[in-house]
């Protein structure tokens, strides 16, 4: 039966071409829209994760509570042992990297070595010098450095371009950082400014400085200590899975005995990127918009396909009448029409997936350069907006695509029940 219907659909293009095109375009558009929104959202999540929180963050509870003050005395000791524990107790796909968040006064000397300008800065120290580290790529340093170069030595520093402008800094100038050490003592050290960075996020460009982690550990006396362990997941892993990864790690934490060097009140906690910087609210909003998009597309496609079904009904008026007159029941006729619609929906969806998937892949790989527009929003967003190819986008597009065609045919097919056999015979006689 299905083969018979399929032959009919393929041979009589007037039955299938228009609804098929509608489904194909609808599915394709939905895939592109959902994939693009998902990509922008993931971009925001990834950018926040890369610059700030990681997808999964492993941090001392007391540090997290007061992180706005960068309390280095609440850093987590035993760097090597902690990394080993994390690697053994979390999924292999997570890449764990150490970071140090610090705060200090940046003091710029004049030619006599006396203070010319100063300003409080916050900074991140990360592994910029190891060959095995992916941090330079993760931060996209080559792109964000607008003048100068990346640090090549521990005591070299990158400064946000707005902070540099305020302090009237020049490349290769020496600045002094004045802060607090791990044990609350005075930490003061000289750094050479090797570059200016522009992340496009005002708060960061105005106050941020980046250095290699070994430099920070030396300056702030953080031997074998870091403030954060950030876990990074491959781009293909949806943010919806972060919660379960966190729960698994928390279960493992219950079995952890304090590592050597930890103080009595040192105890790490696990946080996902969504639990920080208000991202969960933004994600919920994006998800609501996604749901609206899918619903609106479903309704629009349904209306168009209903119309197509009605037109089809008119076009096949004679055929349907003949079949009814020959004794085919109303219900069977409607069932055949719906099966036809289902097949057209499936075929249209396949083409829609190919079309939408192709565009989506292009937008994922090359993206759209939005220039400064996104940076001005204050959100952590890259200038180039990229889509994300995900199974979800295809599922959310294909199901409404097929459903809309079937529903459209169902609504159009109601007319079949209104026609009586006597009327049909009269029509045939006249015809």
């Amino acid at each position, binding site marked *: 039966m299905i083969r018979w219907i399929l032959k009919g659909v393929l041979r009589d293009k007037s039955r299938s071409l228009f609804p098929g095109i509608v489904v194909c375009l609808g599915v394709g558009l939905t895939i592109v829209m959902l994939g693009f929104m998902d990509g922008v959202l993931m971009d925001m999540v990834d950018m926040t994760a890369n610059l700030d929180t990681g997808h999964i963050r492993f941090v001392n509870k007391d540090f997290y509570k007061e992180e706005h003050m960068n309390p280095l*005395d609440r850093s987590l000791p035993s760097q090597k042992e902690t990394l080993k524990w994390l690697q053994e107790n979390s999924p292999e796909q997570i890449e764990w990297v150490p970071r140090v968040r610090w705060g200090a*006064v940046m*003091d710029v*000397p004049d030619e006599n*070595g*006396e*203070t010319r300008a*100063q300003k409080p800065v916050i900074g991140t120290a990360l592994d910029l010098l190891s060959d095995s580290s992916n941090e330079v790529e993760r931060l996209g340093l080559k792109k964000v450095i607008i003048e100068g170069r990346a640090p090549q030595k521990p005591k070299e520093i990158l400064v946000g371009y707005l902070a540099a402008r305020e302090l009237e800094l020049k490349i290769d100038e020496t600045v*002094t950082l*004045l802060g*607090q*050490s791990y*044990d*609350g*003592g*005075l930490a*003061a*050290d*000289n750094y050479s400014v090797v570059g200016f960075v522009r992340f496009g996020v005002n708060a960061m460009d105005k106050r941020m400085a980046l250095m290699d982690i070994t430099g920070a550990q030396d300056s702030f*006396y953080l031997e074998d200590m870091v403030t954060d362990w950030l876990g990074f997941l491959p781009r293909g892993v949806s943010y919806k899975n972060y919660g379960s990864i966190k729960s698994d790690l928390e279960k493992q934490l219950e079995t952890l005995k304090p590592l050597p060097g930890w*103080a009595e*009140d040192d105890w790490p906690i696990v946080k996902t990127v969504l639990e920080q910087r208000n991202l969960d609210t933004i994600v919920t909003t994006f998800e609501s918009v996604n749901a609206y998009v899918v619903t609106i597309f479903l309704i629009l496609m349904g209306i168009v396909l209903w119309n197509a079904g009605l037109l089809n009904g008119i076009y096949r008026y004679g055929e349907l009448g003949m079949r009814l007159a020959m004794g085919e029941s109303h219900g069977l006729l409607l069932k055949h029409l719906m099966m036809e619609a289902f097949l057209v929906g499936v075929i249209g969806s396949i083409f829609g997936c190919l079309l939408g998937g192709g565009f989506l892949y292009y937008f994922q790989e090359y993206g759209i350069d939005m220039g400064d527009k996104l940076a001005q929003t204050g959100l952590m967003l890259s200038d180039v907006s990229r889509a994300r190819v995900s199974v979800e986008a295809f599922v959310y597009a294909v199901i409404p695509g097929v459903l809309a065609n079937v529903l459209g045919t169902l609504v159009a097919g109601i007319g079949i029940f209104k026609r009586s056999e006597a009327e049909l015979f009269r029509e045939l006689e006249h015809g």
Partner: protein
Amino acid sequence: MKMKGRHKVIDFVVAILLGISFFSFSKAYAQEIDPWKLLKAVDDNLWSSTKIISGRLSVDNGRRVRTMAVDTWMEGLENSYSFYKSPAREKGTQMLKIQKKLWLYTPRTDRKILIAGHLLRQSMMGSDLSYEDMLEDRKMSRSYDVILEKWEEFDGARSAVLFLTAKDKEITYQTRRVWVEPKEKIVLKEERYAKSGKLLKRVTFEEYQDYSGRLFPKRMIFRDMLKTDTQTIYHFDEIQFDKPIPKKYFRQSILKR
């Protein structure tokens, strides 16, 4: 009946007399204390034209205690110079305050860093003292208006609680509450408040000793009330008053390795 009425009258008269005598006694005791004179006497005892102090700062940040040995030279209200002798990491660190400016020198950077404005109110080397607390020697009787707020037992001694209000709006601690033992004219405890009335610092003065005719505490315990579980004890190991200090101590040229 008559007897009962007479007793009532006697009770009433006794009560009135007791009340009057208590009121007169309190008033007389209060009149004995002139809060400004008491505060001035405290200043005269603690304050001198110069001070040379050898001491130790024990900083307890709630997790560990770190002790720094420091020598300080102070001249009047304006000038002071500190040299940190230990531990090794802080050795050679120097601070020079001239009027409202403070320079910090660390051997590691080999630089003089200016600490001015709001930075002066930041924690000094992780302690409960700010840079300002450490190097300021203010005469309270000159900078504050004072009233006697109440009498209170503190550490076994009956002490006058003086409430001080700053005359100058630029002063960091706009109000202070000082517990003074009136006989010896020594401060037992002090609370320092922000303009909003928020308690910022609590200082207790312990174990007063006679240093060349002056009573001076052996240690002061500072607590930054914005932090939890922290305290800094300033131990005064040696202290000299009114001893001439060479001018070189208060010149920027002293700040070097």
